[in-house]
C-alpha cells in the first residue's frame, strides 16, 4: 500500500495530493529558510493564525452574495487580506510601542485566531451556505482536493520560487547584516516586507493541505534541519527545499496508504523525523558527533598531558592518563616509560616549543589560530617551515622527528 502510494499508484486524488504537497513543501522550505536566517521564524506562526478570520469573512461574503461559500480562490484571497492585516499590526506594535517582537507575535496570533474561531462557530450555527469543510483550514483536509486546487498550489509555489531566486542576494545580506545592507542603500524594510509577503503566500497556498496551525512546521523545520548539514547559506536554502519536498511527499503518501490518516500532521511528523535524524547524525553540528568529539578530545588531552609529564619526569596520578599511555604502549604497567614513550614525550615537548614560536610570529597567523595544545605541528606546517623554526629554537637535533 505504502509503496503504491509512493509510486503514485493510488488513484487520482492521492496523486494530486502527493504532487501538490511536494511542491508546497519545497517552496515552504526555501522561503522559510530566509525567515530562519533573519531570526524571525515565529512571525510565520502569527501570520498563519491571522488567516482564519479572513477565511471566515470571505466565506460569509460569498455565501450571502449567493455564491458557493467554499470557492477556494475566494477563501484564499480572504485569508491573504487578513494575514496582511495581522502582519501590519505586528509591525506597527513593534515599531511604535515598547513591545518586543515576541510579545507582538503573541498578541496578534491569539487575538486573530480567537476572532476566527468565533466566526467559525457563528457560521456553523447560522447554517449558511454549505459550511462543511471550513474547519479543514485549521489542520488541512485533502480528501476533496481538486485539480484546480493543485494548480493554485503549483502556481503559487512557482511564483515564490522565482521571487526567491531574484531576491536571494539582498535577502541574505539583510539577514546577515541589516546595518551594512542599509548603508549600501538596500531598502531593508521593503526586503523584510517581501520576505513576509513570500511567507504569507506560502501560508495561504498551504492552508488546504496542512492547515494554518501546522504550516509553521513546514516553513521552519526544513531550514533548521538543513542547517545541521552545511555552513553555507545557499546550501541551507537548497537543502531546506529538498527536505521540505521529501517530507511533504512522504507524508502525503503515508496518509494515502491507509484510510483516515490526516495528511498535514503526517507531513509534519515526517519532517520532524528528518530533523531528529539530522540532530543526531549530522557530521559537525550533530549531537552524536559532539559526544564523539568530546570523548576524542578527552583522550587526546590525557595522552598529551601524560607525554608532557613524562618528558619533564613528573609522576602521573590520573588513572585514565596511565591507562591510555599503557594501551598505546608508551609506559609499562609499573608506570615507567618505554623507549617509544620516551621518544614521543621528547617530541611532545619539542612541539610545544615550536608552537610557541609559531604563535609569536605573525607570518604564521593562520597556523597559530589552529593551536589547541593537542594538534601535531606537522599537520599545519611543512617540513621546511618546521626546520626553520627549529633553527630558531636551537637545541638537540635528534628529537626532530
Amino acid at each position, binding site marked *: 500500500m505504502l509503496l503504491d502510494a509512493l509510486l503514485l499508484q493510488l488513484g487520482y486524488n492521492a496523486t494530486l495530493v502527493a504532487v501538490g504537497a511536494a511542491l508546497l513543501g519545497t517552496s515552504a522550505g526555501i522561503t522559510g529558510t530566509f525567515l530562519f536566517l533573519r531570526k524571525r521564524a515565529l512571525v510565520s506562526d502569527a501570520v498563519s493564525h491571522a488567516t482564519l478570520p479572513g477565511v471566515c469573512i470571505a466565506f460569509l461574503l460569498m455565501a450571502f452574495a449567493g455564491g458557493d461559500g467554499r470557492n477556494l480562490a475566494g477563501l484564499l484571497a480572504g485569508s491573504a487580506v487578513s494575514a496582511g492585516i495581522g502582519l501590519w499590526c505586528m509591525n506597527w506594535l513593534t515599531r511604535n510601542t515598547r513591545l518586543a517582537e515576541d510579545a507582538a507575535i503573541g498578541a496578534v496570533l491569539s487575538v486573530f485566531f480567537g476572532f476566527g474561531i468565533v466566526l467559525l462557530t457563528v457560521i456553523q450555527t447560522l447554517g449558511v451556505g454549505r459550511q462543511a469543510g471550513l474547519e479543514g483550514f485549521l489542520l488541512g483536509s485533502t480528501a476533496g482536493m481538486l485539480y484546480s486546487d493543485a494548480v493554485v498550489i503549483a502556481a503559487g509555489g512557482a511564483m515564490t520560487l522565482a521571487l526567491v531566486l531574484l531576491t536571494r542576494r539582498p535577502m541574505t*545580506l539583510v539577514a*546577515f*547584516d541589516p*546595518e*551594512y545592507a542599509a548603508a*549600501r542603500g538596500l531598502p531593508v524594510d521593503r526586503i523584510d516586507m517581501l520576505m513576509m509577503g513570500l511567507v504569507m503566500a506560502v501560508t495561504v497556498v498551504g492552508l488546504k493541505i496542512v492547515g494554518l496551525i501546522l504550516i509553521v512546521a513546514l516553513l521552519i523545520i526544513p531550514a533548521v534541519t538543513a*542547517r545541521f548539514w*552545511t555552513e553555507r547559506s545557499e546550501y541551507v536554502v537548497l537543502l531546506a527545499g529538498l527536505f521540505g519536498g521529501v517530507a511533504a511527499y512522504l507524508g502525503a503518501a503515508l496518509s494515502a496508504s491507509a484510510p483516515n490518516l490526516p495528511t498535514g500532521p503526517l507531513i509534519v511528523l515526517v519532517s520532524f523525523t528528518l530533523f531528529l535524524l539530522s540532530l543526531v547524525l549530522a557530521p559537525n553540528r550533530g549531537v552524536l558527533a559532539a559526544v564523539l568529539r568530546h570523548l576524542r578530545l578527552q583522550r587526546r588531552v590525557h595522552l598529551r598531558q601524560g607525554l608532557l609529564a613524562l618528558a619533564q619526569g613528573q609522576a602521573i596520578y590520573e588513572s585514565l592518563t596511565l591507562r591510555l599511555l599503557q594501551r598505546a604502549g608508551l609506559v609499562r604497567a609499573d608506570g615507567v616509560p618505554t623507549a617509544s614513550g620516551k621518544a614521543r614525550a621528547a617530541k611532545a615537548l619539542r612541539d610545544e616549543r615550536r608552537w610557541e614560536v609559531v604563535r609569536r610570529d605573525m607570518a604564521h597567523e593562520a597556523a597559530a*589560530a589552529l593551536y589547541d595544545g593537542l594538534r601535531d605541528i606537522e599537520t599545519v606546517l611543512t617540513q621546511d617551515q618546521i626546520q626553520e623554526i627549529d633553527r630558531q629554537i636551537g637545541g638537540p637535533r635528534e628529537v626532530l622527528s
Partner: protein
Amino acid sequence: MEIVKTQAQGDLSTDKAPEAKLAQSPLAIRGLTVSYGEKPAVFSVDMTVEPGQMTAIIGPNGAGKSTLLKAALGIVAPVSGRVTIFGRSLAEQRARIAYVPQRASVDWDFPTRVIDVVLMGLYRELGLLGWIKGAHRAKALDCLERVGMGDFATRQIGQLSGGQQQRVFLARALAQGADLYLLDEPFAGVDAATEKAIISVLKSLREAGKTVVVVHHDLATVAEYFDNVFLINTRRVAEGPVSEAFTEETLQAAYGGRLATSQIDKLAKA
C-alpha cells in the same frame, strides 16, 4: 565657562566655511539631530571631513559617535539636518562609501564562509542574478590578502577570533573600492596584531587619496594614528587637526569629569 566660549567661536568659524569647501568635503553634515525617543543622541551637529585624511570621532560612551555615523549613512533617520557626500546627496553617492559596522552587530554563527562575506562587498557588481565568477573571487581574495586573512578564505566565520572578524569586515569594505571609508570602533577588543594590520591598511588608503573616518575609543593612540579629530558629546565639542583640536581643554569639555586630570596631562603632552 571659557571652554563653552571657545566652542561657540569654533562653531562660528565653520559656519562661515565657504561653500566651495563644503562641496569638496567627502562628508559634510549640517545641523544634524538624531533622537531615539525623547532624548537626542546627537544634537545640532556640524561636521566637515577633510578629503584624503584620517579623522577620528572621539567622545565618551553614549556621546553619539556611532549614531552620528549611522545617521550620515542613512541607517537611522535624523530628526533634522543635512548630509552631503562629495557635495551631493547621499542617494547619489552611495557607491562611493564603504561602511564597516561594529563586529558585535551580527551573528557570527550565520552559515557563511569568510570569502562569502567579502563577496557581499561586491553586491553592486554582482547584481541580482549575476553568477559569482573567478574574477570576483580573485578580487575578494586579494582584499583578504590585504588584511592578512588570505589563508582564511574558506573557513566558516564562526571559527574566527574577534580581531579576525574585524579584518574580514574591513576586507568586505575594501572590495567595494570606495572613496570614503567609515569605520565604527574597528579597534575595539581586537588583538595588537589586528590593530597593526588595520591601521596599515587605513594608511595605505590615505596614500591612495581615500578619506577615512573612524569612531575611536582609545585616546592614547589618537595622535599617532590620525590627522584630524572630531570631539563629540551629543553636541560637537571640537573639530580640526589633532594638534589644535585634541587638547587638554577640549578633552575636558568632551569628557567632563570622566577623565582623571593626570590622564589628560599625559595625553596632551603626547
